[in-house]
């Protein structure tokens, strides 16, 4: 009998197996560190100290976490509807345009808390708009969403470079970026939140968008498991033909799921653009859209899992930056390797340990 059909309790499927996948990914990363002649345990210690050891380190870790929650949710929402959205990177990039246009328009007239809701809408709208075309092509023309979203990442990057170099650039400046937003276009830091825990934020750009990310995680949970639309999306994700047979409109559900996915990816831009650098820059997304894939796979597409996985990747990103400073032999790209391994083991090889788990579980149950 195939082991795939043996039911396992949830704590094994959603707890133990992902943990095992993660440990294998870390173990192989450790081998790479060892291979290039550094001590993996020493590297791990530096990584954790560099991400959780000081107030400002935690602040940076949570800053990265914020971005990854948004992109992780973005990938997960599409995934629930059976769509693999590789385009979060491009959608986040365009979302930055939406946020920046709002901030540039309003920052001199109103305080930040008036700008913020409009910026959220602007970022989500532009992100969703960029997801709309691949969604429409998938729903109506049968193009493969993976291919079209990859293509749209590149088209988006070209478009944004064009806009930043030729349209939004400050006249007379060389750097392709917009002017710096006034305080009315910036999201304030959460130093008071850190102070509650007796920590000093220092220069870390941990800001209000973290709270927006948590709210969005809750809203996504409610959407997926507590609404009719969420139910329809999940049905479509499990079996498109059954969903259509049950009267769930395919095209509409695909397009709505992708609009939500793109909107969430777009909101990611609030964090770096309005929370950290206070201007729109080239390549500000910095791969966060792709990290979202790993975060969503790690978190098994559940908002709670995504928040935890995003925190883990926040630790990796901040700790990895610190580590590359302490051990010059290990570059920042080590994080990219770990990320790739996590995607490989938690995503593509997720069933590798299942047969062994089934055997172990059956033996324990009998004993």
């Amino acid at each position: 009998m195939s082991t795939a059909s043996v039911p396992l309790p949830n704590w094994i499927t959603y707890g133990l197996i992902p943990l095992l996948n993660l440990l294998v990914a870390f173990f192989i990363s450790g081998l790479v560190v060892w291979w290039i002649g550094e001590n993996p345990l020493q590297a791990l210690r530096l990584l954790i100290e560099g991400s959780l050891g000081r107030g400002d380190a935690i602040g940076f870790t949570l800053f990265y976490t914020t971005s990854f929650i948004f992109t992780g949710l973005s990938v997960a929402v599409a995934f629930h509807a059976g769509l693999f959205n590789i385009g979060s990177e491009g959608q986040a990039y365009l979302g930055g345009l939406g946020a920046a246009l709002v901030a540039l328009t309003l920052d001199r007239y109103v305080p930040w808390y008036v700008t913020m809701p409009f910026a959220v809408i602007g970022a989500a709208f532009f992100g969703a708009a960029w997801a709309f075309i691949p969604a429409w092509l998938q729903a109506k023309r049968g193009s493969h969403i993976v291919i079209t979203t990859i293509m749209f990442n590149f088209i988006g990057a070209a478009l944004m470079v064009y806009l930043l170099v030729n349209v939004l650039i400050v006249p007379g400046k060389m750097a392709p970026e917009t002017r710096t937003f006034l305080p009315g276009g910036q999201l304030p830091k959460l130093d008071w939140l850190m102070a509650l825990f007796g920590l000093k934020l220092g220069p870390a750009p941990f800001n209000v968008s973290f709270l927006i990310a948590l709210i969005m995680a809750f809203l996504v949970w409610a959407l997926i498991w507590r609404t009719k639309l969420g139910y329809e999306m999940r049905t479509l994700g499990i079996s498109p033909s059954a969903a259509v047979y049950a009267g769930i409109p395919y095209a509409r559900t695909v397009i709505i799921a992708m609009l939500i996915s793109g909107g969430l990816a777009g909101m990611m831009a609030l964090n770096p653009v309005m929370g950290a650098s206070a201007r729109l820059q080239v390549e500000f997304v910095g791969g966060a859209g792709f990290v979202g894939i790993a975060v969503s796979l790690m978190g098994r597409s559940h908002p709670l899992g995504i928040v935890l996985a995003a925190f883990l990747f926040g630790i990796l990103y901040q700790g990895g930056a610190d580590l590359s400073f302490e051990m010059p032999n290990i570059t920042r790209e080590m994080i990219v390797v770990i990320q790739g391994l996590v995607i490989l083991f938690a995503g593509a090889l997720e069933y590798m340990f299942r047969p062994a788990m089934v055997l172990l579980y059956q033996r324990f149950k009998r004993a």
Partner: protein
Amino acid sequence: MDLFDIIVSILGSTIRLSIPLLFTALAGLFTERAGIFDIGLEGKMLSAAFASACVAYVTGDAWLGLLGGIAVSILFSLIHGFASITNRGNQIVSGVALNFVAAGLTVVLGQAWFGQGGRTPQISGEARFSPITLPFADAVRDVPVLGPLYANVISGNNILTYLAFAAVPITWWVLFRTRFGLRLRAVGENPGAVDTAGISVTWLRYRAVIVAGFLCGFAGAYLAIAQSAAFIKDMSAGKGYIALAALIFAKWKPVPVMYACLLFGFLDAFANFMQGKAVPGIGEVPVQIFQALPYILTCVLLAGFIGVARPPKAGGVPYTKER
């Protein structure tokens, strides 16, 4: 420079820019025809570029460099095969993962071994594939029109360029004139039928991904030790995705793949040429338009507005034997 010289120079760089696309797109042709999506072309090309530069630098031999690139690229293919054929994992997730691993590992190892920020040292002499002058190239150089075309576009390329163009008819012949090719195409359309005929779906698909690894090895070696003289961080720069676009654009057929790669190479060459130049009547055309054009064209094609691109039927679906 008069118009004719400009055309010759653009055609020359069109050829140079098309070669990595051509090898990679042919690689994708084999796996996708066998029913395995291959988003990981980019990663394979990049890892092969790194490996070939390292081996060529250490041994001082370009051919050994090429072999090193091929070996590493096949290793990546086998991981993809293990995940997506043996473990029936999601092929797209696996490809994305391998792209990350390649992008990260090449820089980490490069920095650890050479300490130049992820670059390899400069490679020269025998460790590189240098341009070959075809017979009579110098003799016919002064013949009007055909002379410069022969001397500067057709001659003067390195051996990998000629191999790339040779690979096109070979691919066609293997896919459409051999038993292996027939079965490979069948496994991408209907693996159940192939299985019923008593042929191993698993082994066929593994062979397809190994061939893809082999071809990506050439693409990587071309980048690092033929076109350039070192490995540079992220030097594949999205070419794997353009190759994927070319593959779709060519509707999964070998000869059209060559034309699509030449077209995308031409767009790239033309964009480089147009940078900072004004078109009469229009003004300066933003270079980003040319950069985005292959992707836009592919989306338009996928939407069915200019013909229909129909992928192999069983693409992306892991095969499970009925029990």
